[in-house]
């Protein structure tokens, strides 16, 4: 798994898969090692609900990170759309905790509750009602506007796309991956 110069083939392979440059991969690997404590994998310490991976290796790590790569300026419209879809799919899976292709009300509520948990004054119930309202809205938007054979038990990925329509995710969902050593300063 080493992203050192000796294992350049591996790096190249990862480059092809994730689109990172070799410098970035090296940086990320350093970071990865830092996070994992020099282990080959990062373990999931928190006992989460089932369906979460117990541990991720560097390749997984890179794959996840690659979702946050800024889009390429040279991309044509089609690829941008594809990229957007990929990014949204990633987000969608963050909501869809049991990964059944639907964000159910319960899942949505959990997200909203966590989102509002920072504010101690907002009760759980109001968080819930917000989630309910949002779900209702999603239902109205998606079922109302779409061809009516849309099954509405939860937000499907298509609905999700619809909801995100107004937001230029492809221009927002990115994080700066530095090429330089400055990354070390942040440790």
């Amino acid at each position: 798994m080493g992203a050192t110069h000796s294992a350049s083939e591996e790096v190249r392979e990862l480059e092809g898969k994730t689109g990172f440059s070799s410098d970035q991969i090296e940086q990320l690997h350093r970071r990865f090692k830092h996070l994992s404590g020099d282990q080959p994998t990062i373990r999931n310490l928190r006992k989460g609900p089932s369906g979460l991976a117990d541990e991720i290796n560097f390749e997984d790590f890179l794959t996840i990170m690659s979702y946050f790569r800024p889009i390429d300026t040279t991309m044509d419209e089609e690829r941008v759309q594809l990229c957007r879809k990929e990014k949204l799919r990633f987000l969608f899976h963050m909501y869809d905790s049991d990964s059944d292709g639907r964000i159910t009300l319960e899942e949505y509520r959990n997200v909203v509750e966590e989102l509002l948990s920072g504010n101690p004054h907002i009760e759980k119930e109001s968080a819930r009602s917000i989630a309910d309202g949002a779900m209702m809205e999603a239902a109205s938007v998606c079922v109302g506007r779409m061809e009516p054979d849309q099954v509405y038990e939860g937000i499907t990925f298509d609905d999700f796309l619809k909801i995100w329509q107004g937001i230029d995710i492809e221009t927002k969902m990115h994080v700066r991956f530095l090429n330089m050593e400055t990354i070390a300063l942040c440790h």
Partner: protein
Amino acid sequence: MLRAALPLLWLPLAGAGATEEPTQEPGSPGEPPPGLALFRWQWHEVEAPYLVALWILVASLAKIVFHLSRKVTSLVPESCLLILLGLVLGGIVLAVAKKAEYQLEPGTFFLFLLPPIVLDSGYFMPSRLFFDNLGAILTYAVVGTLWNAFTTGAALWGLQQAGLVAPRVQAGLLDFLLFGSLISAVDPVAVLAVFEEVHVNETLFIIVFGESLLNDAVTVVLYKVCNSFVEMGSANVQATDYLKGVASLFVVSLGGAAVGLVFAFLLALTTRFTKRVRIIEPLLVFLLAYAAYLTAEMASLSAILAVTMCGLGCKKYVEANISHKSRTAVKYTMKTLASCAETIIFMLLGISAVDSSKWAWDSGLVLGTLFFILFFRALGVVLQTWVLNQFRLVPLDKIDQVVMSYGGLRGAVAFALVILLDRTKIPAKDYFVATTIVVVFFTVIVQGLTIKPLVKWLKVKRSEHHKPTLNQELHEHTFDHILAAVEDVVGHHGYHYWRDRWEQFDKKYLSQLLMRRSAYRIRDQIWDVYYRLNIRDAISFVDQGGHVLSSTGLTLPSMPSRNSVAETSVTNLLRESGSGACLDLQVIDTVRSGRDREDAVMHHLLCGGLYKPRYRYKASCSRHFISEDAQERQDKEVFQQNMKRRLESFKPTKHNICFTKSKPRPRKAGRKKKDGMANTEATNGKPPRDLGFQDTAAVILTVESEEEEDSDSSETEKEDDEGIIFVARATSEVLQEGKVSGSLEVCPSPRIIPPSPTCAEKELPWKSGQGDLAVYVSSETTKIVPVDMQTGWNQSISSLESLASPPCTQAPPMTRLPPRSLVTEEPQAPLNLPSDLRPSFAFPTSLAKAGRSHSESSADIPQQQELQPLMGHEDHTHLSPGTANSHWCIQFNRGGRL
């Protein structure tokens, strides 16, 4: 335009008359004191404020006149029109008074006209967007302005050296640099005036606009430094002076920003304690912001920056602290003042240009300046963008750069600054004034006029105006957190990380300090959006539902006002359903008695309300098809109409109907249940609100008889193998049936009038028999379903048999309608209901897919409570036909259109 000019014609005359009067008065001291005058003309005492008021009036009238024609304003920016108007007015004044009376005084401009505009733009600046692009904005504002000033100044000097500028323009390098510094700054007023009408995308707008606001500091510094250098004479300028000049850039800009932030802090803090004196809240906002401006001006810091920062900084806290009414007041007053000031500025610009005594023309200088500012602006933008794009994750593309270069409008700030120049120190002032006027006019008029077509032609990404939806807000928030987290994981503490930190800090300390406790408690952006949506719902509800309430007794009068509802547009649906959602906002507890009462109230309201939609519907139909007078005929017609539509909708969407009807319901039912749970705090507004919700749905509901439903269900059955789905739908339709009859009971309709017991009986089964029903549910999940299915199945089959084929459905229901509906009124109705209720419980769990919704809605509720939720569920399946039907409405409309 003429109308606007009329009062002005009178102005100089009055002014002339006023100047004569004082000369007479001192001339008559020896005369005996005059007796009590019946009428005295005291023009000179009110002259100044009177003139100001008149000017504003003229400007406002001009605005009204401009906007009489939509065509003109859509083509020509208002600023252009105002400048042209100013030119005309100035010409008239000049012709009448033989001298230019009025012009843009720099003092007035900087102290009175500019602050409102800047405050408005700062206060309503989309702060998130602003900070997201702060880097780019700062670059353009600082580097760009410096670049423009120096290159333009130097190039003009070069032009003079080359002999292209007439030798009578006596100016050295420093003079040209001074001129360059004042002409280089992009003007916030002009940019705002033009760009607000162009609607380019947010990023582009915020960059150009932010630049125009923030470059003030640079302009002020450059102007002052150059001015003092000129005054000192270039020989006396020493190296330390240059250093001082550079240092003053930081002092002026940071100082201005600091002053603004201090006042923002004060303002936020003050509004925290205005709970008992709400009335002065708006005043405080304006006073403190203005104080910030004056303070910065006093300390010769960047006043524009100060006000911008003040507005930007205080908004969040002030908005949270002040009352809703004050918020509206602030908003309107600010907009009014800003638009007023803007109007006057442009008009005065036009008027000032007429005064030929102030300026001297030199073609070389004018043309050279025009060319250089355009050229260097473009060059500067391209160079800076190239550098910025190395760092920006979302690069600015070429089209953006074109718009940015072209959007570099110069305006009143440059003009005011050039007027301020000292003629004795700068001999070429008159030439500079003329050039500035030309540049301003050129940029505002020519560029202002052409930028809209240019943007269209280049296909610049426009901004889409969409109302904030709850989902988007939620997603964006989640998204921010995710980004911050990912940055943390990656180990690079970038923008998102710091914003996250700032938000934490703000939440922990600042907000607690600056916000009222009550405001802080509910202060959250998501909550805000939710709240706003609710308010909107409430308003729209009052607009529509209010009629419902008032017209429960009398059906006809409400017809016209509610035609709009009959359209059952998606937005309507959204709104209505949203209003359903907002009900549960308050408190959640489940006191049975309260709920029962509420249900009863709701039911009665529904009964009262359900009849009208048909009228409404009819009204909208009647526009095209029938005369409104004959009521009976109408009923028939509406029915037929409905059937026709229904059949039409069948053809294209056979499958779809079954889905929309059956499947969305679990979702909504689950939702509604939540609402119901929360609803216990029965406010007055609530039941009617639900009624409103029901109302839209009811458009078809009343007209549809159960026959139609049956025919319908038979349809779905044919199309679809999922009998369960059908059952679920059918049952709730049966419920509707009951409701229809209930509604009929109240309304004096010409149709069958069922006995009132139906309503009571209907209420009883699920009010008193809660426990039983709950039992049903639990058992049904496993066993009863099939049985119920079968009953539903049989029912539908019986109706199905009568229908040969889908297209023929029209005939049978028509013929069969009367007997069936009669049946419902008679003893059968109560019998029907319980039996049919069962499947309605069953469907969520029994349905493979729909089961999800059930589990999801009940899973989070503790087991003991399960009965109640299910009750709620049941209750709302009773209501849910509305939701379901609302889908129907869409269907029908669509079908109708097809």
